[in-house]
């Protein structure tokens, strides 16, 4: 019973962060602040959902796999945020090109 309550809470927290990430993506004024909103969803949203599902599936090896997936996501989201931000900063300097 307590376990189920915990799962529900974890999934709800994950959903909340996903909603926050999406709203941030829609409402924030420029790309750099949108990146911040997106990493919210990547790290915390997926983290909470992963924790909830690891608790639900309740097999040690699967939990390890889910944890590794989350670590991989942290790595890739941090890297891609850095790369996108740097890319955008480089883009702004040269405006001799039209987006198509």
């Amino acid at each position, binding site marked *: 019973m307590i376990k189920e309550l915990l799962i529900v809470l974890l999934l709800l927290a994950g959903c909340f962060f996903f909603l926050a990430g999406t709203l941030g993506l829609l409402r924030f004024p420029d790309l750099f602040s949108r990146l911040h909103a997106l990493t919210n969803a990547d790290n915390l949203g997926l983290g909470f959902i992963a924790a909830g599902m690891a608790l639900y599936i309740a097999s040690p090896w699967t939990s390890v796999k889910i944890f590794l997936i989350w670590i991989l996501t942290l790595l*890739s989201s941090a*890297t891609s945020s850095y*790369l996108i931000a740097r890319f955008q900063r480089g883009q702004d300097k040269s405006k*001799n090109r*039209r*987006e*198509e």
Partner: protein
Amino acid sequence: MDILIDILLALLSVYLAFRCMLAPKLSKAVFVFFAFGLTLALAWIRLGAVDVAIAEAAIASGFMGVLLLDSLRDFSLTFSKNHNVIEVKPNNSVEVKNRSELFPKIGLGIGLLLFLLISLEAVWNIPEGGGLTALAGSKISESGVEHPVTAVLLNYRAYDTWLEIGVILMGLLAIFAAGGIKQYRKAGITPSQDPILRQAILIFIPVLFLFGAFLLYFGKMGPGGAFQAAVMWGAIGILLHLGGWPVFTEIPRRLRLLMLTAGLGFFLFLGLIFMTTGGALFEYPPAYAGLLILMIETFGAVSIAAALTAIFAFLTK
């Protein structure tokens, strides 16, 4: 309650498909296409086809995405150069316009109607007993693998899979034929100066290799297999090229050609060898079938991965 997810997924994928076709800008179309691929992968999971979901996500969204991003760059380059030329073009095609708009519409309408009729007919006539499912399931112990999809792909219908490997090679040949094989350039990209990008690539390469090998082996008992593994291994080559280490053009030419043709050749070789002992084409002895299938898949994955890397290396130079 399940039906809600299905309806939502169906609506989302059809909507995205329409949006992708009707997008006014190429960049919008490309990114809507990525989203469409991901939605399709989710839809395949709801249909119970995890193999297809992995292939869809990896090929349609990943590999195609890489190619599309690259061509988007080229289009953006040409359009910004020829921007003025397009506007200057005289507008003297008024009468032609009406006729040329009418005929494609009629043709498109007829084609769509035919397609609708054919697909309705196909859905209507699904066999009651599930077609060959029962037969395929009953012979699974002789096929050498435990997963029915792999059994169908590499044992029952090996001929199809052999030709599929061939199709990828043919695609590569067509690209070579259109672009000229001598245009492989050795240098051009310098290794990336960015330390974080470099480390990220170096971290992801072992992950990709392990995951590809896992998928290859796991194909025996679950969703996975040569094609999915090949995309993961091909991604290694693509990442190395993107980071400025053009490995594929660095390795000797003969080895490169061997890698490209190994899958097709080895598959055919095995098929023919067992023909001499009295079997049909691509008929393996059940005792060794598991091992042979794993070998074929390994060679196939290596050569598909090489082909994907070659396509990327050739198109983005």
